[in-house]
């Protein structure tokens, strides 16, 4: 299981400066019901795409700076980054097949 977390402090290095592979950031909070639905799906796909896509969570309560910078106003929000740029985003809970499709799309783009 992937339990990688990003924070305000390491976001620059871990996400924006990651050049070797795309990064998926799962913006979430413990009080958010739909986040608990999407969380396990993201973790499953993180395992499946291990070594191809870096996946981690960012707690919006504890990391207001990054959440604000990317204009997060609804969670769960998933952002895919490539070379420091957002290349794909989705708001709200998504099914496994739909999410897998996004992984594949980001990898093939």
């Amino acid at each position, binding site marked *: 299981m992937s339990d990688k977390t990003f924070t305000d402090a390491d976001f620059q290095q871990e996400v924006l400066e990651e050049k070797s592979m795309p990064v998926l950031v799962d913006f979430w909070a413990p009080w958010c019901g739909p986040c608990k*639905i999407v969380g396990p799906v993201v973790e499953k796909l993180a395992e499946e795409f291990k070594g191809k896509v870096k996946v981690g969570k960012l707690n919006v309560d504890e990391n207001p700076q990054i959440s604000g910078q990317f204009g*997060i*106003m*609804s969670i769960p929000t998933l952002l895919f980054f490539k070379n420091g740029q957002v290349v794909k985003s989705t708001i709200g809970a998504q*099914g496994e097949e739909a999410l897998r499709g996004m992984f594949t799309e980001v990898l093939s783009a």
Partner: protein
Amino acid sequence: METMYDVIIVGSGPSGLTAAIYTTRASLKTLVIAGAKWGGQLQLTTDVENFPGFPDGIQGPDLMQAMRKQAERFGAEFIDDNMTATDFTTQTKGPFTVAVGSKTFQGKVILIATGADAKTLGVTGEAALTGKGISYCATCDGAFFRNKNIIVVGGGDSAMEEANFLTLFASSVTLVHRRDEFKASQIMLERAQKNPKIKFLMNSQITEVTGQNHVEAVKIQNTTTKETTEMPIDGVFVAIGHTPNTAIFKGVELKEGGYVNAMHTTHTNIEGIFVSGDVTDNHYQQAITAAGWGCMAALDIEKYLREE
């Protein structure tokens, strides 16, 4: 050949999960197609104060987790993804084949328990600004509106509940309602009226939401004078009721409002397809009535399969 299930339950709110508890306890092989967003509307709530058995209330997501666990304990299988739209028009009875992505499943019986989803306003700017200041889930997004000014649209219990909840974060909540009377229950309405942070804007409806990267203002029309004004605002929470989720069941007869037509108790127009909960209920729409309906459907299904 796919596994043949006795029952395929589509939906995983209180209705679908109660049905699953009953069918599995009756030794019927049960598959729950739970949907990508499993757990139904209670996943989007906080305190549930009117579900019997919880004198101090219970969190909606916790209640759904418990119901799911109870169904799994008796052997219900779950798929957390959406069923593909299927045309049942030519089917006179089961077995039925349904698909989830690339997988297909067969069931002697289908139970439609897909519930209902939040209605949208249907105005310009809404789609583009959803998740950027427009929200259909106060409990999910409320915390992003700390010290902001926001609007709640609606006049029912859920609008009152959301307005009250949002005052935990927002500096002001304006409740915009198109009529001059409320569908909300007295207790919920009074709670909102007594809250000093909530203002009421009656006989009014939003006609447009504007903003560059996030919501900045709304256009509001007075439904009596037809006069339109612009109001700067940081967020809009929509709580104007729900639309039943029936689009994936082609050939199943609907009644007024798009709800599934239950012929007698929980049967639909197609033999072997049953219905329960908010997807057929245009009136009560409570967690407990949905659960009760799920139980009724399960008992009807059990009887139907026994007589087959």
